[in-house]
């Protein structure tokens, strides 16, 4: 995430992210492979030992622990936690919100609440730029001494809304963790709720031993999950995040991690699902769906400053290679932004409304900040959820994400009658080639069948404010034709021939 120097090979992330619950679950739904079985192991772990995922695997949990640790150091007075009542309805609502939306084909619920994806966005949108800023500062100093070993990294695009959403999540989570410990994990997080209810029946549990407990309340005071009620000697396993702080703190051996059945479980009755509430959630889902389709209909206009040129209207956003179709991509991507951080050309940028409301924050190709490098499939290698499926590089080179559209009235060759051809220069398949125009000039022409929609032409086009060439996304990716010119045989040269001058 933070590694902008591309030192870590993209394939490495597969192993690091193996245990991330939501990505792994989604990947298995998208394409089941051995590498996507991490979520099964997490379920197994939970069934055996409780929410180990939340204490050691989840990066957001880890981040909260760091925040907690820092506040502990800063604050002079010792912080105290106390047992809080479980917000059962809230917990199930958040989980249901994600599941229902997902079943309707929208990843937005998971997208917003999955802890891994939230962490991914925080790391990608806040930590990474911070590190880059620091790097650029140091490198600018070194450059003065003609040392070029550290180089500045240019951030080519800033996406305000996704940034604001991310930073508000960070603030919210930091606030919750400072004030109430792991409240996010215990009340909001859908993974926490799901794993929590499994860990209620886990084999090993945290147990308060009646005979050895002094009722001193130390464990409750230090329980960041607010799940120990020391008065009634109850540990709510559904909320316990398995930090084991209580065990190490207990002055006696009054609290243990054991496989015995816990003596008391809080509120033994099962959760009743309120019909009306369920209906509300479904109708909310339907409402959001229709809203998003309406918003998607609103054509996106790109900067209006100079009325003399032709503005660009893009009907569809461009989804990354390997995502196969916008619909498929929108339903699986959790917007963890790992691909955004890994993309070497920075063409992948978080979206706002380009995919419609429900696709918010999901990455799309932004040809203003870069273009999809021909010989690159890194995004498909790093994607942990399978929203971008692994794609072979040769196949990728023929995958048509969109099609370049040429607007002659905006083109320099047409408006100023001078040479340009920047678009054709950059085109890797020569789908954009130059054909004769007036006075020995050449003007671009798009051969759509060869175009793969990489956006190099659009990126290179120097016209302002509207480009003279742009890529219209394909809602369903197609296969481009291979440029047959490639097959012509090589010319022979006589090296002994005299020079032509």
């Amino acid at each position: 995430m933070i590694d902008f120097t591309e030192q870590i090979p993209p394939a490495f992330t597969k192993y690091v992210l193996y245990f991330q619950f939501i990505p792994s679950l989604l990947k298995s739904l998208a394409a089941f492979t051995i590498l996507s079985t991490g979520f099964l192991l997490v379920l197994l772990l939970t069934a055996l030992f409780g929410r180990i995922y939340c204490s050691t695997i989840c990066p957001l949990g880890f981040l909260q622990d760091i925040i907690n640790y820092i506040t502990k150091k800063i604050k002079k007075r010792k912080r105290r936690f106390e047992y809080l009542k479980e917000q059962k309805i809230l917990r199930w609502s958040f989980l249901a919100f994600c599941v229902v939306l997902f079943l309707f084909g929208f990843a937005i619920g998971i997208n917003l609440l999955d802890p891994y994806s939230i962490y991914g966005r925080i790391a990608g949108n806040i930590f990474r730029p911070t590190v880059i800023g620091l790097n650029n500062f140091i490198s600018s100093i070194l450059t003065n001494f003609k040392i070029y070993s550290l180089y500045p990294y240019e951030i080519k695009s800033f996406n305000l809304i996704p940034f604001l959403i991310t930073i508000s999540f960070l603030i919210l989570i930091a606030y919750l963790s400072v004030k109430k410990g792991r409240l996010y994990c215990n009340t909001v997080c859908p993974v926490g709720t799901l794993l929590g209810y499994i860990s209620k029946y886990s084999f090993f549990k945290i147990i308060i031993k009646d005979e050895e407990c002094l009722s001193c309340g130390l464990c409750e005071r230090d329980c960041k999950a607010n799940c120990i009620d020391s008065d009634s000697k109850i540990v709510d396993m559904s909320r316990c995040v398995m930090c084991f702080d209580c065990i190490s703190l207990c002055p006696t051996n009054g609290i243990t991690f054991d496989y015995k059945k816990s003596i008391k479980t809080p509120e033994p009755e099962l959760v009743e699902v309120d019909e009306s509430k369920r209906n509300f959630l479904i109708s909310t889902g339907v409402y959001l769906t229709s809203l998003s389709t309406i918003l998607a209909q609103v054509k996106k206009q790109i900067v209006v400053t100079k009325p003399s040129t032709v503005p660009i209207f893009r009907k569809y956003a461009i989804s990354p290679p390997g995502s196969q179709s916008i619909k498929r991509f929108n339903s699986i991507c959790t917007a963890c932004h790992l691909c955004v951080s890994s993309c070497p050309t920075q063409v992948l940028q978080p979206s706002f409304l380009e995919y419609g409301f429900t696709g918010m924050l999901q990455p799309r190709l932004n040809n203003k900040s870069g273009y999809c490098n021909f010989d690159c499939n890194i995004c498909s290698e790093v994607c942990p959820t399978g929203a971008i499926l692994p794609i072979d590089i040769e196949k990728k080179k023929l995958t048509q994400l969109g099609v370049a559209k040429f607007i002659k009235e905006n083109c320099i060759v047409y408006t100023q009658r001078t040479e340009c051809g920047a678009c054709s220069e950059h085109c890797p398949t020569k789908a954009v080639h130059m054909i004769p125009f007036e006075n020995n000039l050449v003007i671009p022409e798009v051969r759509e069948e060869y175009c793969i929609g990489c956006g190099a032409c659009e990126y290179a086009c120097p016209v302002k404010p509207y480009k003279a060439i742009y890529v219209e996304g394909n809602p369903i990716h197609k296969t481009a034709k291979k440029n047959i010119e490639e097959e012509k045989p090589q010319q022979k040269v006589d090296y002994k021939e005299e020079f032509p001058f």
Partner: protein
Amino acid sequence: MKRREFIKKGLQAGTIIGASLSFPGFVSNYIFKENYSLSGNYDLVAIKGGEPDKMFDEGIKSLGGMKAFVKKNQTVVIKPNIGWDANPERAANTNPKLVARVIEHCYEAGAKKVYVFDHTCDDWKRCYSNSGIEKAVKDAGGEIVPGNSESYYQDVEIKKGVKLKRDKVHELILDCDVFINIPILKHHGSTRLTISMKNLMGTVWDRGYWHRTDLHQCIADFSTFRKPDLNIVDAYYVMKKNGPRGVSLADVVIMKSQIISTDIVAADVAATKLFGMNPDDIQYISLAHKLGVGTKNLESLRINRIIL
């Protein structure tokens, strides 16, 4: 040789050496053209039939060896074409073997430091590594420098520019003692060919400005700013169509040629003819000739033609 001639020539040589020590780059830019008494007697060398490094070894002799250009403790900047994420055989970038050999010559001549950079079109890290140039430079002891950050570029005035009056140029170009330009000869979709002058486009920050402000004139204008001390045109692998990026190996012809000259316009004219085109069809060549950057009349130059 008469005694009088001997004294005259000795004095000339002395002045040249003295001048070169006090004014770096002076020799190659001015005096060298006027005085032919050093071992190199030619303005332009064309070589054919060898490997890139061998051809350079042979060719540079006719220009007096690298010592005529690089003096002890000088810093050298080499600007190859590393524009594209493609391997050397695709002929989109300068041949790494040639770049490495030039660096070695510079160090042999006493250079303190040799920098290599390009403002690439594709992602620079991929260009640097896949072109093979990054490795070649490091192996030869040179330093490869990034060119894709605006912070490296300094605002300069282009006094003789017709349309291009100001631009942002990479600081190494401004700071160096010796500037060596190593373009690759290849087809270009809009300017027809890219050679020495077009290669300088990789030393400025905003190429888009050139594209929308009369590309040919900007190329010619910029070549008045800082003429490279030496131009080495790599024509070993030559991209005959689909340039400048190329689509596949079918675009490439193995020509095993090289052109070396201190005159950037002459180098481009010779390379154009080698490619099989008429220099008058490449607008920026005539425009640069008009601006007095160099000459497009090869007849007025002493050319050494070497076939290995």
